[in-house]
């Protein structure tokens, strides 16, 4: 298996037209090995014969339910499972995830959503290290280079500054969500593993120091912006 597109994917759903649609969507995306089953019996056969790398599973099936099938499957397989269910109750979602499913999508769904979640699950399971290449860990804010691999900042005058552990956690979190607001709680969680608000004051101190390192004029920031009442966001990220 060289890429996620080589994964063997089994779709279990009692509605043949839905099986066909999901197959179409996945094929168009580039997945090459797609199987389908319309009930528990067929699914069990396919599971033991084809050994799929990932299963997209409906909860309501004519001869049993997906939760039961997942429990059976977990006895001898650790292939990721994605529920695709018409039951939207939170209990069902939690039950599914509690049983060891990797994701739970409720019908109706957008093809793009299914693709993104499936790819995320497959990447996480089979290619955890290749998720982000090393070149993606280096970016620029104006003329300042930030290298998340080494945790260093290189200013345009060649000066190298090292990021502290907290500063690193903040800039990494903000970079992962470039252009988007990251709430105070999320940032605190990234740095302290705790989203309790009492860290806000120290958060502000760390952000100020971070700005001194990355901004040309820390009192008029252009890259690390404050979103009043909510949090911060990183903008103007470029790659070279």
């Amino acid at each position, binding site marked *: 298996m060289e890429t996620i597109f080589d994964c063997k994917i089994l779709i279990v759903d009692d509605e043949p037209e839905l099986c066909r649609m999901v197959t*179409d969507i996945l094929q168009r995306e580039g997945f090459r090995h797609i199987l389908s089953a319309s009930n528990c019996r067929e699914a069990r056969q396919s599971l033991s014969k084809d050994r799929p790398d990932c299963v997209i599973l409906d909860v309501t099936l004519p001869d049993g339910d997906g939760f039961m099938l997942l429990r059976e499957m977990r006895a001898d397989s650790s292939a990721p499972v994605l529920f695709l269910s*018409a039951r939207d109750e939170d209990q069902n979602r939690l039950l599914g995830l509690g049983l060891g499913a990797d994701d739970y999508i409720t019908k*109706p769904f957008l093809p793009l959503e299914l693709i993104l979640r499936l790819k995320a699950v497959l990447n996480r399971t089979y290619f955890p290290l290749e998720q982000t290449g090393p070149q993606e860990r280096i970016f620029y804010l104006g003329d300042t280079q930030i290298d998340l691999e080494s945790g260093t900042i290189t200013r345009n005058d060649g000066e190298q500054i090292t990021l502290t552990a907290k500063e690193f956690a903040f800039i990494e979190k903000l970079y992962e969500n470039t252009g988007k607001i990251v709430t105070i709680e*999320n940032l605190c969680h990234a740095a302290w593993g705790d989203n309790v*608000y009492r860290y*806000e004051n120290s958060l502000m101190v760390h952000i100020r120091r971070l700005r001194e390192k990355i901004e040309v004029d820390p009192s008029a920031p252009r890259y690390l912006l404050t979103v009043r009442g909510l949090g911060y966001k990183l903008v103007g990220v470029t790659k070279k």
Partner: protein
Amino acid sequence: MKSVMRIISRYLVSAVGVALILLAVNFVVFFIYMFQLNSIEQVEYPVSQIAEGLTVQNGAYQLSDTTEKIIEGNYQWAMLLDDAGKVIWSLNLPAEIPQKFTVPEVASFSRWYLDDYPVYVWRRPDGLFVLGGRVDSVWKYNIEYQMVVFDKIFIWIPLVLLINTLLAFAIALVFGLRLYHSLKPLAGGIRDMSEKKAVKLSTKGLLGELAAGINKASAHLVEQDIALDKRDNARTKWIAAISHDIRTPLSLVMGYASELESNAELPTAEREQAGIIRRQSQRIKTLVSDLNLASKLEYDMQPLRLSPVSLPGLVRKISADFLNGMMDERYTIDVEIDENTQDETITGDEELLTRAVSNLITNSMQHNPKGCTIQINLVKEAPFISLSVMDDGIGFAEEQCLNLNQPTEDPDLPYSGLGLTIVRQIVHAHGGKVKFSNRTTGGCEVLLSLPLDMG
């Protein structure tokens, strides 16, 4: 049980009151009657006055006409005795009355009766005037009391009253307690009935019929409750089943529409039409899940997964999510979180609370397609935390506001959509209050007050 005790104490007080009032009324009536009788017989025509009606004219006794009338109207006869006890003048004197009396005879009749005629006497200079009343018209008795009794009159009258009061109280208490014991199970039955518990009381005894009535009413209520629960349950399940069944066909509509929309080989017009199908399917999806949630909340079939929730965090997360992707530049969100709310939590279902706030933001966006600024404020007003979501858009219709602020929505007033109904239901499920209004500066305001965690 308190109410029964209250009834009994009222009963005691009124029983004692009745006894005292009766006593007082009796005294008053008795005295008034006595006073009036005496005034008729004695005050208007006292024997002294009648005696003066007899005068000596030309050596013979002469009775005035008025005096004669009075004697004939109110008495029967009259006579005058000289000092020797001899009758020297008389009027209508019955034959059995002797013409001469000895001193012992005079002494005797002057106090009591003369041949059963009640008599009244008056001393005149020429003898004794005797007036005879009709037989059996007057009861005469000489009253004689030890002075000591009258000396203590102000002690014994209140004492008698007090003893009477205590006695009345004791008797009423005995009856009251008996009543209390027979009422107690009935009161318990009524209380149980109001708490929707099945009631089965003993139907023996004085109040058996009442107990039987309560049993019947309770059985009726329980039956009705079961029937209602069953119907609500059936309706909720039915809606849940429909919303489940609609999802698979809707998946196909949405999936293929989305595929067509992104198919680069199709002309732009067709792709735009596919986009409309996709967006409308998403609306149906929202409606279906809103309908399902609303029906579950309405009949308390949505279990709340309670945990401590930080509203500042929740508001920031929702606002950031909206700003990060779910809204375009037509809309902005301003968040103002009061410092005093930062460490506060409420006990709630985080997912439902998120739903409520999101619904309000979505509602503002849907009703203001030209764009608006959404302002979210969070303030602590112990024991509540107040979360208000406002916009500067078109606001609510007045009737819509009225309907949303009622305890239950009126089907005759304009309907505001499931989104706001769900907001209300979620806030109520958390023991909070919600108020829909329009701002004086234009736009709407929805104020949610949720109870704070204490301690």
